[in-house]
C-alpha cells in the first residue's frame, strides 16, 4: 500500500465516523407518535391530493393489524412507534425553494461537508443529486438538462403533484402496503424520496443520485423511492446515507420500488453508512429497508449493488421479481459488521418468466462482537422454463467473538431450471497475511488490503464515484478491531 493510501486511512481512522456532526437548524415538527392526525398532517404539509391521503390511511389501518416480522436473526429492543417524530422539516420549507440561492446556507454547508455536489458549477463528473434532509427533499440538481430528454427526476411529493397518473399506477405495485409491517408503516407515513421516470428509448446520460440524511433527534426517516424505466431505457441510480452520532437509536424504514419495462435496464447502487453506534453498541440507526424490483417486460434487467457498513441493525433484502421472459436480476453485496452491529441481509429472486437469469454475489465480513447473516431466497415457479441461478456467498470472520451465518432458501418447481448455490466461511488466509507483512505492511494495512480484495468482485460493480468511497469505507469499518 503506498503512503498516500495509508495517509488516507490514518485520516479516516482518526475521525472514525466523520458524518457524525449535527446541523443546528430550526426544524418544524409536529408532536411525537403515530395516529391518523399525524398522517393527515403530513399529507396536508405536502399538499397532497385526496387519493394519496386515502392510500396512506388504508396502509395505516393495515399496519395497525400487523406485528413486526420476526424471522430475522437480529435482536433489538421493541420499537416504540409512539416515541418517534414522523415528520421533521427545516423551517421555511412549506414551499420548495426554486433554486439554490433560496436554500438555508447552513443546509448547503451540511451537504458540502458530506461531499455532495449540490452546486451545479462545482460538479465535475455530472451527477444529478436529489438530497433528502430528514423528511424533505432539499434540492434537485441538473433538473433542466434532464427535462430536455423527457426524464423526470424529482422528489416523490413533487411527482404526486406533477405526475399523479404515473404515481397512481405504480406506487405500491411492487411492494404492496400490506406486504409486511415496515412496508405498511412506510406507506402510511412516507415523507419524501425520489421519483424517476425514464421515457421510452432514452439512455439517461448521467448517474442519478440521492443522499439521505437523518439530522433531527428521535426522528424516523421514511423515504419512498419509485423508479420507472420505460421500454428500451437505461438508468443508473446511486443512493448514499448518513446520520449524526447520537446515543439513542433512530429508525429508518424506506421502501424502494423499481419497475423495468421491456428491454429496460435499471442499475441501483447503495452505499449505506448510517451511524452504526459506538464501540459498546450504544446508539445507531435501525435500518429496516424494503427494496424490490419488478422486471415487468421481456429482456429487462435490474441490478442491485450494495455496500453496507453502517447501521446498528440492518434488515434489508433487495429483491427481483423476474416476470418478463429473458429478464435478468443481479445482486452484489458487501456487508461489513463491526463492534455490536447486526446485519441480516440478502436477496430474493423469484423466477416467473421463461429463460430468466439471476446472479447473486454476497460477501460478508464480521468483526468484533457483530453478527452477520446472509439470508437469500431463490425460487423457480412452474413456468420458469430454462431459468438459471448462480449464487455465491462468502463470509470472512475476524476474531472469535463474532458470528457469520448463511441461510439460503432454494426452491425449484421446474425441471428445466438450474440452480447453483455455493458458500464458504473462513478466516483471513495466513499465507496472504504473511506475504503482505513480509513486504513491510502493518498488520492493519494487510488486513485492509486482503478484505478489499475479498470484496473486489462486488466493488467493481459500483459506479466510479462510489467505488472510491466504498473502498475507503471498507477500510474505516475494519478500524480498531484487527491486530
Amino acid at each position, binding site marked *: 500500500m503506498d503512503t498516500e493510501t495509508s495517509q488516507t486511512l490514518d485520516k479516516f481512522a482518526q475521525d472514525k465516523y466523520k458524518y457524525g456532526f449535527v446541523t443546528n437548524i430550526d426544524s418544524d415538527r409536529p408532536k411525537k407518535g403515530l395516529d391518523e392526525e399525524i398522517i393527515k398532517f403530513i399529507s396536508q404539509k405536502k399538499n397532497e391530493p385526496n387519493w394519496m391521503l386515502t392510500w396512506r390511511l388504508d396502509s395505516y389501518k393495515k399496519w395497525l393489524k400487523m406485528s413486526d416480522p420476526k424471522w430475522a436473526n437480529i435482536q433489538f429492543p421493541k420499537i416504540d412507534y409512539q416515541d418517534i417524530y414522523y415528520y421533521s422539516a427545516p423551517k421555511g420549507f412549506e414551499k420548495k425553494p426554486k433554486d439554490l440561492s433560496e436554500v438555508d446556507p447552513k443546509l448547503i454547508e451540511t451537504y458540502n461537508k458530506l461531499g455532495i455536489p449540490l452546486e451545479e458549477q462545482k460538479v465535475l463528473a455530472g451527477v444529478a443529486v436529489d438530497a433528502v434532509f430528514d423528511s424533505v427533499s432539499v434540492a434537485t440538481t441538473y433538473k433542466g438538462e434532464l427535462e430536455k430528454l423527457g426524464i423526470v427526476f424529482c422528489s416523490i411529493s413533487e411527482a404526486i403533484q406533477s405526475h399523479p397518473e404515473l404515481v397512481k399506477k405504480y406506487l405500491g405495485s411492487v411492494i404492496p402496503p400490506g406486504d409486511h409491517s415496515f412496508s405498511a408503516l412506510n406507506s402510511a407515513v412516507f415523507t419524501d424520496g425520489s421519483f424517476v421516470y425514464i421515457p421510452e428509448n432514452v439512455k439517461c446520460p448521467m448517474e442519478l443520485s440521492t443522499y439521505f440524511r437523518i439530522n433531527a433527534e428521535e426522528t424516523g426517516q421514511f423515504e419512498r423511492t419509485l423508479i420507472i424505466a420505460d421500454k428500451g431505457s437505461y438508468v443508473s441510480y446511486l443512493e448514499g446515507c448518513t446520520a449524526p452520532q447520537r446515543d439513542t437509536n433512530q429508525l429508518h424504514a424506506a421502501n424502494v420500488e423499481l419497475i423495468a419495462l421491456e428491454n429496460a435496464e435499471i442499475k441501483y447502487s447503495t452505499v449505506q453508512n448510517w451511524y452504526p453506534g459506538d464501540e459498546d453498541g450504544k446508539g445507531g440507526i435501525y435500518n429496516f429497508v424494503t427494496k424490490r424490483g419488478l422486471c415487468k417486460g421481456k429482456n429487462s434487467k435490474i441490478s442491485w449493488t450494495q455496500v453496507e457498513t453502517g447501521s446498528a441493525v440492518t434488515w434489508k433484502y433487495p429483491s427481483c421479481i423476474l416476470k418478463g421472459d429473458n429478464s435478468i436480476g443481479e445482486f452484489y453485496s458487501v456487508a461489513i459488521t463491526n463492534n455490536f452491529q447486526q446485519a441480516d441481509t440478502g436477496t430474493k429472486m423469484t423466477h416467473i418468466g421463461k429463460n430468466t437469469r439471476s446472479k447473486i454475489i454476497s460477501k460478508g465480513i464480521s468483526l468484533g462482537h457483530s453478527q452477520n447473516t446472509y439470508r437469500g431466497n431463490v425460487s423457480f415457479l412452474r413456468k420458469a422454463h430454462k431459468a438459471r441461478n448462480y449464487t455465491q456467498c462468502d463470509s470472512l*470472520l475476524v476474531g*472469535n467473538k463474532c458470528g457469520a451465518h448463511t441461510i439460503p432458501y432454494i426452491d425449484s418447481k421446474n425441471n428445466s431450471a438450474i440452480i447453483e448455490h455455493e*458458500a464458504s*466461511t473462513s478466516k483471513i488466509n495466513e499465507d496472504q497475511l504473511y506475504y503482505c507483512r513480509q513486504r513491510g505492511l502493518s498488520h492493519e494495512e494487510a488486513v485492509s488490503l486482503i478484505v478489499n480484495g475479498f470484496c473486489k468482485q462486488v466493488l467493481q460493480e459500483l459506479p466510479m464515484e462510489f467505488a472510491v468511497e466504498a473502498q475507503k469505507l471498507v477500510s474505516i469499518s475494519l478500524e480498531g478491531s484487527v491486530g
Partner: protein
Amino acid sequence: MTFENNFINHSKEYIFLDNETLLNQREETFKKIFQKNYDKKNNESLKNITITDLSKFEYFYKPKKEDSTISLIDNFNYEIRVVNGICKNYEDDNIEIRNLTNLDFKKFLNQNNNYLDDIIIDFNKIFLNSGFIFNIKSNSKLKIRLIHSTSDNFTIFQNNFVNFKKNCDVQLEHYFNFTHNSINNINYNINVEEGSVIKHNIFENFSNTNKLYLTSNTVCEKSSSYNQNTYNFSEGFVRNFHHALLNGEFANATLKGCFFLKNKNVCSNKTNIIHNAEHCSSDQTYKGILNDHSKANYYSNTFVHENAQKTEGYQLSKGILLTDNCSFFSKPELKIFADDVKCSHGSTIGPVDESALYYLRSRGISKNEAMKMIISSFIEEDLQNLDIDGAKIISNNLSDYLSSLVDD
C-alpha cells in the same frame, strides 16, 4: 380419533405410568402441541407435512413378545429382529440388548434434548409405547443387522438407546419391514464413545400405506467416527431427521443420504451437526431424484461454537427433477461463531444433464438406458461404504425405480 382422545384413552398403554415427573412432562408437551404453542421457526422443516397424521390416527398397540428373535449368523455377525417395537432380551460377550422397563425412567429424566426442538420428537414423547437399550461392548468388531418389523395397523412410538463403548468397530445395517397402514415414530439416541468407528446404513423401502418418522441423535466423543448413510426407496412417507453433536476433539460425523421419489410421494429430510470441540470434521450430503408429482425438502445446518476452532464442516445438496410437476426445496444453513474454520455448503437443483444424455444417445444407447446410466452415476459415490450385500440391495431397488421411468 382426535389427538385429545388418543392421549386420554390410550395413555395406559404407554410406558412410565408410575413416574409422576415424566407424566407431567408428557402432559405439558401434549398441551404445548394441542394449544399450538410450539416454536414454528424451529419446525419449519415440517411445513409440507400433514402433522395431523401423527395426532389424529387410530391408536393400536398390542405386541406379542415371542415374535422377536436374535440370531447369530457367526460369532461377529448378528441379526436382531425388533417386532412391533419389542426385542428379545439377550446378552453375550459382545452385546447386550433389552427392552425398556418402567425402571429405566432415569434415562428419560436426564435426557436433555430440548435443543432439538422438533415436534416429531414431541409426539414420540407423548405416545411413547416401546423402546430398547442396546450396548455394544468395548473393543468388539461386529456386523449387526437390525430389522424393524411392524404388523398391520400398528402405531409404534419408540425411543431407543444405543451405546457403542470404547474402541469398537461396528457396521450397523438398518432395515424396515412394514406390512400395511402402520405409523412408525422411531427415535434413536446414539452414543459413540472414544475411539469407536461406526458405519450406519439405513435402508428404507416399504409400501405406500406406511409412514416412517425416523430421528437419530448421536453424540460423538473424542476421536470417534460416525458415518451414516440413508437410502430411501420407499413408496410410503419418510421423514428423516438426523442430528449429531461432536463433543470430543478429533471426532468426525458424516450424515449422508439419497432418496428416490415417484408418484405423489413426499419426503422430508433434515440434518443438523453441532461442533462443540476443536479439530472436528463433519459432512452432510443429501441427493434426491424426483419423478412424477413428488415433493421433497432438505434442511441442513452446521453450527460451530466459538470454542470449536479448526473445524471443517461441509454441506451439499443435489436434486434432479425429472418432470415439471415435482418440486424440491433446500435450505443449507451455516451458523458460525469461531473464526478458524473451513465451512462451505453447496446446493444444486436441475434436470438431467442434456449434453451427457446426448453423448450417450449418439452412441446408440436408448433414452431409458442412458437415463439409468446417468442416475446410477449420480449416487455412485454413496455406495462406497456398502458391503456386497448392501450394494446388491441398492442395485435392485435402483433398477426397480428406474424401470418406472418413462419409455421413449
